[in-house]
């Protein structure tokens, strides 16, 4: 412990002894980006950190992923805005890697580049009918109700049927179920996008199915979210009691995991608690276990549209780790990016690091990025101390000034933090007119217009 303390002191003094301030560019302004920035600013006195994001608005999934009815989860934005307001930090919005500026150019301008732009691609299920209209990825649906500029035109059809099926039983699945089933009067006072609120007010969806491949013991959601969805006012919950049967393998899993034990308890209580039939007109939430999609069925009347789906039964075999394969992950060792997939530690790309979902796959909670950033910054600090980055750090880098010059030459309308604050203020103002915490601006034009205005 004393040694660790001494190493920390060494890293700090290294940065101040060096004649050239460490210039870092972080690509992506979600939790991974901001926790990384905060850690670097704290650990390396004199460092300058720029955070770029392709959107004019910062905060990544905290703004566009966290459900509108979970405002407390977004409180972390206050901490992130304090980081952005640090004199050694700059947020630069509307700057897209690969479009406004290239990675090669960034590595030329900065000593260190950290990629923290998430893991966006949708997973292809690979079954017939997946491309039928009405089949949506959670990403696009969540972007839609959260007012992401890329999601505003989704226009999901909520008026021609009373049933929605959600594949998955994790927290995002529960978010979607909740948004579809919650009384709209409750949603009307959140920061939900107004186009989504309007659609939900006209929605005829009354039955939602949450379909999981495994059983209640393996359900991927967590207790707070499950408790919340089970507690929606006047909602009929249906869980098949036979699905609640536990195997010895399940017993073992519950013994080792507090989360799974509590989830199972909540589900079994919900299965037996309520009435056995819904009352007329009551909204319904059905948990379906041990089923996976086999194909989506096309409508006879409306060609190109989904009208149903075929499920097949699953059986669970054995307990294995690594239940998912992470896609869209950049090969890395503790946050140091590798040149190729071989895992060969000598193929490390100097000065290039990764943090967040791009490093770990789309897993975990906001806080997971705190520890992820600690690991990546520890690798960076170690590399600085051991002189691994000496070839770049012994030279001055243009950093922010150089970047802004290039962007200006290319007529890129950079949105600095002060301009985001204008957007923030306007959204709050518009929200106050409707008893909402904010009314999100959802088009690029509106966002840039307000950002640019005085």
């Amino acid at each position, binding site marked *: 412990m004393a040694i660790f303390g001494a190493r920390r002191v060494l890293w700090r003094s290294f940065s101040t002894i060096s004649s050239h301030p460490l210039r870092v560019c972080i690509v992506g302004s979600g939790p991974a980006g901001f926790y990384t920035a905060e850690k670097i600013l704290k650990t390396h006195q004199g460092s300058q950190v720029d955070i770029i994001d392709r959107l004019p608005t910062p905060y990544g999934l905290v703004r566009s992923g966290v459900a509108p009815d979970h405002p407390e989860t977004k409180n972390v934005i206050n901490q992130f805005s304090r980081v952005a307001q640090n004199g050694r930090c700059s947020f630069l919005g509307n700057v897209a890697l690969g479009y406004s500026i290239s990675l090669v150019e960034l590595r030329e301008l900065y000593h260190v580049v950290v990629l923290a732009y998430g893991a966006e691609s949708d997973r292809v299920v690979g079954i017939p009918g997946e491309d039928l209209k009405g089949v949506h990825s959670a990403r696009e649906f969540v972007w839609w109700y959260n007012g992401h500029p890329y999601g505003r035109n989704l226009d999901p059809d909520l008026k021609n049927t009373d049933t929605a099926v959600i594949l998955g039983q994790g927290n995002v699945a529960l978010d979607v179920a909740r948004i579809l089933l919650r009384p709209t009067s409750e949603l009307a006072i959140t920061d939900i996008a107004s186009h989504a609120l309007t659609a939900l007010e006209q929605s005829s969806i009354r039955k939602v199915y949450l379909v999981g491949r495994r059983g209640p013991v393996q359900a*991927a959601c967590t207790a707070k979210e499950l408790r919340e969805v089970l507690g929606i006012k006047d909602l009929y919950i249906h869980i098949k009691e036979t699905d609640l049967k536990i195997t010895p393998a399940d017993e073992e899993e519950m013994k080792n995991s507090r989360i799974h034990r509590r989830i199972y308890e909540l589900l079994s209580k919900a299965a037996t608690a309520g009435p056995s039939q819904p009352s007329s007109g009551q909204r319904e939430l059905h948990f379906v276990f041990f089923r996976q999609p086999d194909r989506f069925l096309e409508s006879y009347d409306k060609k190109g549209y989904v009208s149903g789906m075929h499920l097949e039964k699953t059986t669970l075999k054995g307990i294995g780790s690594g239940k998912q*394969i*992470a896609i869209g992950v950049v090969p890395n060792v503790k946050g140091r990016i590798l040149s190729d997939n071989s895992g060969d530690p000598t193929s490390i790309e100097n000065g290039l690091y990764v943090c967040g979902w791009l490093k770990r796959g789309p897993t975990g909670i906001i806080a997971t990025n705190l520890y992820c950033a600690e690991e990546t910054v520890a690798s960076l600090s170690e590399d600085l101390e051991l002189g691994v980055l000496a070839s770049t750090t012994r030279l001055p880098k243009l950093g922010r000034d150089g970047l802004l010059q290039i962007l200006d030459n290319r007529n890129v309308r950079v949105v600095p933090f002060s301009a985001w604050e204008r957007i923030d203020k306007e959204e709050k103002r518009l929200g106050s007119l409707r008893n909402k915490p904010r009314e999100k601006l959802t088009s690029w034009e509106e966002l840039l217009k307000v950002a640019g205005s005085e």
Partner: protein
Amino acid sequence: MSRSRYTQRHCCQYQWSTLELLPETRAFQGSIFQKHHGFSTSASDGASAGADEEKGTIPVTFVSKDGEEIPIQVPIGMSMLEAAHENDIELEGACEGSLACSTCHVIVMDMEYYNKLEDPADEENDMLDLAFGLTETSRLGCQIVASPELDGIRLAIPAATRNFSVDGYVPKPH
């Protein structure tokens, strides 16, 4: 360095952490909270302490991730999270005491003090489910409120564990 992080602490925060969170008020919590943010950021830091000097304080020792012991005085009625921030102790509080995260996770070092605390509510247990390095005597710092019987309590801030996943999942590189 860490001082600049906390100069804009929200003055009424510790009062909010003792506010009982009924499920039906949760939906309104965000807007209430934000109104308070507006209030506290316009008030000067001088007005922020709020604690009654007459009520007194209790000695509390925080043990940092590196094993460093940090003794502080905590006003009766203040949460341990707020107290940590007032003293520049590195305890995260992402959701600012609203039971929507697990980053203020602390370990009560003595069972005797752990037993003096009231059992965690469902809401706190739900968040503890997600805490990294959970132990038998883990609690959320925002839910431990200073009272005379906690005089001398020692709280350890857990070190981050290597596996970050909530459910033990380890991603395969592609």
